Each structure stands twice: as C-alpha cells, then as structure tokens.
C-alpha cells in the first residue's frame, strides 16, 4: 500500500531545484519571523532585567534630558553633566531614603579598543554603598578596593575578558598615564556592570579633576515611602533632575512596542512573499501534471483525493521550510545578535535574541497555517481537473 503522503513527498522530489528554492523561501521567511520576534522578546527581557538590576529605583543627575541621561547611565557615553557632591548628603539625610550610592562616570577615547578605537568608560564608586545597592554582584576573583583613594580597579566579567586581565594585572587609562591594579573581577551578572571598569570614586575624581563632582546618585527609597512624592521632593533640589527608572522602563517599553509593530510588518511581508512563492510552485506543478492528475481520476481518485494530495505537498513544503527556518534562526542567533548590536544605538546587556519553545511553536503553527492557505487554491484547481480533458489534451479520435 502506498499512502497519499508518500505520493506527495515523492512528487516534491521530482523537481528538486524548484522544491529547494521554494523551501529556501519559506525557510528564510521563517528565519526572519523567528529572529525578529526573538529579538523583540529578547530585547524586552534584557531591558527589563537591566533596569531591575540597577539596584536603585531613582537616579539623581545634573539637569538635562532625563532619558538621554538614563541611557547614558545604562550604556555609558559622553556629554556627561556634573552636580555637586554635597547634594548626596542632603539626599542621604532624607527620611524616605533607605540608601544612596554616589557615582562619577568618565569616558576617554581608547585607540586600542576595537578596530579603530572606541570609548572606554570608568565608573567611580564607593565600594561599600555600591555593593550594598547591588547585592547580586559576586566576585570571580578578588574583591572591592580596600581604600577610598587607592589606584585599584574592579573589572566586570566582560571587561576583564576584553582587557584580558587577571587580579594583580595593571590597566592603564589612555591619555592619563595612570595605572590601576586589578584587585577584583566580577562574575557575570547579565547587566551593564559586566562591561564596566570600577575604580574608587575619590581616585577617579582626582585623575579627571572632578573633585566634589558627581554624575549620578543612585537612590533606593524605603519600602513604605511613596516614590512619586519622593521624586517630587528631589525635583525641588537646585540644578538636578530625577530619573525614575520605572518611568524610563515604561517609556522604552512603549518604544519597543512601536518597534514591534514595525518588526511584525516586516515579518508578515516576508511571509507573504514566501506564500506567493509556494502558490506559484504548486500551481506550476499542478499545471505540469495536468494529464497525470486527470489519469489519477480515471484510476479512482475523487476530487477530494486530488485536493488532499496537493494540499499535503504544500504542507510538506511549508513544514520542512518552517523547521529549516527555525533551525537556521537558532544556529545563527548569535550572529543576528551581533548585527543588531552593531546597528542599535542602545542595546541592553545579555542575550538580545531570545528564541524559546513558545516562539518556535508559534512560528511553526503560523507557517503551517500559511501552508494550508497557500495550498487551498492550487488544490482546488487540481481537484477540478476532469479526466476527459486530460485525455483529450493528448489524443485525437
């Protein structure tokens, strides 16, 4: 006994190149769909994680664009604004504040970074307050600097890998001719801290001649405190602005949601193109087998049997293409991520393309649904072929 499935499968092998090209079209569209949706999901998750792992709910910064400042804080960057360090004492004394950590970010051009140089960022922190704020940070080697004005550095996991440094090695701040001894290397945290070089706040202020100045103060408010009231209170302080991370998150998420619509539109266009390719291939195949399909009817096939045969062919094509696309997306997710990181002005740390089982199942169902739709017309056409027409096209009587 031979099944309709076997007949359909073997028929796809008849024109191998054409089948392969159609399959590639479906695979590419599935790849685009999985990658784009995976990126969307990954970006959202990574951003959430980054913001949640900041360890504080608010950042106090010198006046300027709050979102630019927040992005700078998340990613590191130039164009920094400064505020008086004395503000930190005022904030620390506020009864609604649980703890604070003052920070100074400094950036320099490092000619040895990347192919043509890049920005190297240094974060001056107080190890005690910073460590208390970010309790999830653990050390792979060593620990925090012991003295407030030491020439010592702690490297995030990725920074250590990039600089290829171990505890005891020295690092140099380009253009400053100052060396730091690496005293600690952090474990991977999946946050921006992974790429950061931490140095004592006082030392950094001294080197960059920013004594008594800060770029940021991280603030953790007490649990019972009303954060929006605290925010309003801090806005009253001179020359500072308050960045509420919950608001930042909300704003970025709404941007991400807008991007999602764009991303889905691209994916849908890719799928529509693949769908047209499938319809074209199957219609051509039906046209080429006009006589053969007619003869199948003389040997007992009902219109429904022919419809099923053609539909199975379409489904096989789409299923194989869908699976291939998902495999491609999984295999190439790292490359996709690198490309996206190179394009995006800001990207959170950690995996940017997150392909999970739910997404794979969704994609396969979507591709199968498209297969079912694409196969309808060619299958209906094939089912309508009359055996007599097939014979007449070949015989003079």
């Amino acid at each position, binding site marked *: *006994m*031979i*099944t*309709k499935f*076997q*007949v359909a499968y*073997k*028929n796809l*092998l*008849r024109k191998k190149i054409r089948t392969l090209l159609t399959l590639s079209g479906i695979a590419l569209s599935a790849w685009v769909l999985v990658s784009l949706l995976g990126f969307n999901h990954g970006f959202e998750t990574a951003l959430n994680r980054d913001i949640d792992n900041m360890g504080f709910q608010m950042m106090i910064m010198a006046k300027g664009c709050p979102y630019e400042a927040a992005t700078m804080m998340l990613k590191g960057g130039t164009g920094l604004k400064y505020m008086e360090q004395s503000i930190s004492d005022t904030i620390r004394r506020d009864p609604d504040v649980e703890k604070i950590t003052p920070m100074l970010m400094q950036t320099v051009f490092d000619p040895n970074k990347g192919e043509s140089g890049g920005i190297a960022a240094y974060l001056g922190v107080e190890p005690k307050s910073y460590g208390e704020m970010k309790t999830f940070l653990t050390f792979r080697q060593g620990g925090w600097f012991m003295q407030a004005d030491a020439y010592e550095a702690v490297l995030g996991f990725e920074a250590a890998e990039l600089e290829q440094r171990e505890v005891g090695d020295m690092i140099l701040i380009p253009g400053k001719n100052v060396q730091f001894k690496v005293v600690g290397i952090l474990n991977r945290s999946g946050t921006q801290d992974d790429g950061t070089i931490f140095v004592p706040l006082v030392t950094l202020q001294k080197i960059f001649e920013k004594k008594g100045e800060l770029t940021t103060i991280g603030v953790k408010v007490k649990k019972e405190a009303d954060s929006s009231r605290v925010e309003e209170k801090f806005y009253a302080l001179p020359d500072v602005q308050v960045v509420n991370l919950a608001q930042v998150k909300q704003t970025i998420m709404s941007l991400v949601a807008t991007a999602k619509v764009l991303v889905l539109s691209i994916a849908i266009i890719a799928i529509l193109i693949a769908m047209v390719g499938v319809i074209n291939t199957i219609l051509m195949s039906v046209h080429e087998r006009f*006589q*053969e399909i007619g*003869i*199948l*009817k*003389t*040997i*007992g*096939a*009902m*219109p429904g*049997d022919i419809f099923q045969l053609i539909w199975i062919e379409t489904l096989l094509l789409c299923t194989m293409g869908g699976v291939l696309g998902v495999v491609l997306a999984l295999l190439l997710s790292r490359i996709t991520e690198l490309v996206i990181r190179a394009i995006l002005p800001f990207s959170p740390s950690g995996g940017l393309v997150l392909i999970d089982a739910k997404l794979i199942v969704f994609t396969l169902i979507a591709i199968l649904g498209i297969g079912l739709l694409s196969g309808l017309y060619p299958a209906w056409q094939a089912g309508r072929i*009359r*055996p*007599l027409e097939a*014979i007449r096209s*070949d*015989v*003079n*009587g």
Partner: protein
Amino acid sequence: MKQNEISMEAINLTKVYHRGSEEIPAVHDVSLKISKGDFVSFIGPSGSGKTTLINLLGCLDNPTSGELLLGGRRIFGNDGRPLSERKLTEIRRELFGYIFQNFYLIPTLTVMENVLLPLTFYRKLGAGNDVLGLLKLLGIDHRKDHLPGRISGGEMQRVAIARSLVNSPEILLADEPTGNLDTKRSAEIIRILKELSTTKGLTVIMVTHNLELARQADRLFEMKDGGLRTIDGGVDKKTSGLAS
C-alpha cells in the same frame, strides 16, 4: 472463458459537441451489446469518433442522448440529466480499468507503487490481495522496484495494465494501447489483453489505428463519421440500430 451475460449495452448513444452555434456530432446513434469476457476493438481514422465513443462507454463523459447499461444497470438515460464527476468516478472505479497510449505512470513511484496507486484512493472488496501475482502474470515482477524511466515501453504498458487490473475491474478500456510501441511489443500487449479476456473473463474494449492488431479481437467495429459498423470476416455490416 466466454459468458453470455451482457457486460455493456449502448442504445442510440449520441454525443454532440458545440462550437459556438455550430453543432458537431462526434458519435451518432450508436447501439451495441458487449458480452462479459468479450474482446472487442474499434478502428477508424482520426476524427471518426472512436475515442469519444470509448469515453462514453467508459463513463468518462456524459452522452448528449441515448442509454448505457452496464451489467444490466442503467447508467445514462434515466432522466436525461448528466451525471456529476463524482458519480462518474464512483462508477469508473467500481467497473473499469483504463490503459492509454502514453501509459501515464507516475515517474517518481516504482513499478510496484504505480500498480498499488489505485488502492490508495479506492479498494474494491477482495481486490489487490495478490499484486505480486499480477506482476508475475504480466511478466514484470522482476521490475517491481524500478522507476518507470528505467524500463522499456512494452514493460511500461504492462505496468499500466497491472495498475488498471489491481482493483479487479469488469471492463478494461484500452485507448491506443500499442500506439507508442514497436510491432513486437505491440503484439505482446495484444496477446496479454486477449489472454486476460479468455482466462479471466475480463471484457476488453480497445481502440486502435492498427487493423492487423484490431483483427485479433473477437469482434471488430469500425467508426466512421460518428457511426458504427461491425466488420465480420471482411464483410461490412452496417450497424443501423444494434451491433451484437
């Protein structure tokens, strides 16, 4: 193994095609009776209507008028309404096997798979139990795993015959079955058809251009301008009304 049971009876079968307002009579008032186990052949020039007639007899098309009875059961002519494609398929798969000049084997399926293919769509009770035996009978069992492209034309037609027989039809319609074969292989196919008719009681209706092959049938009909004549021992007998 001849039986007197009537396998097929056509009464005043007529088929008229329309081209614009013009009427083209392809088959005109044909009546005939074919007994079970008969091997009959139709001969005639191109355009004589023989293929149209065999299509009507084989339920591949509806007649414009007339009646067709198969095994005593009235197929066409009940109420003058044409049968649907579905209904025609139901009748075809129950009663008929077909072979054609161009074999129409599926090139991606092996000989065995091609022969089994009709059973994928329909399996008549008790049919298809000894497919290998059928292949042996037709002398192609050693080719069962070959693709059609790897066997000769004569073998391909034998595969087509096996495929047409797998569902145990009562009537085999052969439209130019030797049209693509050389003389030796043509004779072989005719021998097989004749043998099936005599040993299995299969009614065989064949259309051919080749008078020599057609003469090997038990009965020979000539189609001309849509009408039917029976040729009996070289003497033409006009079949005005009934050729039985």
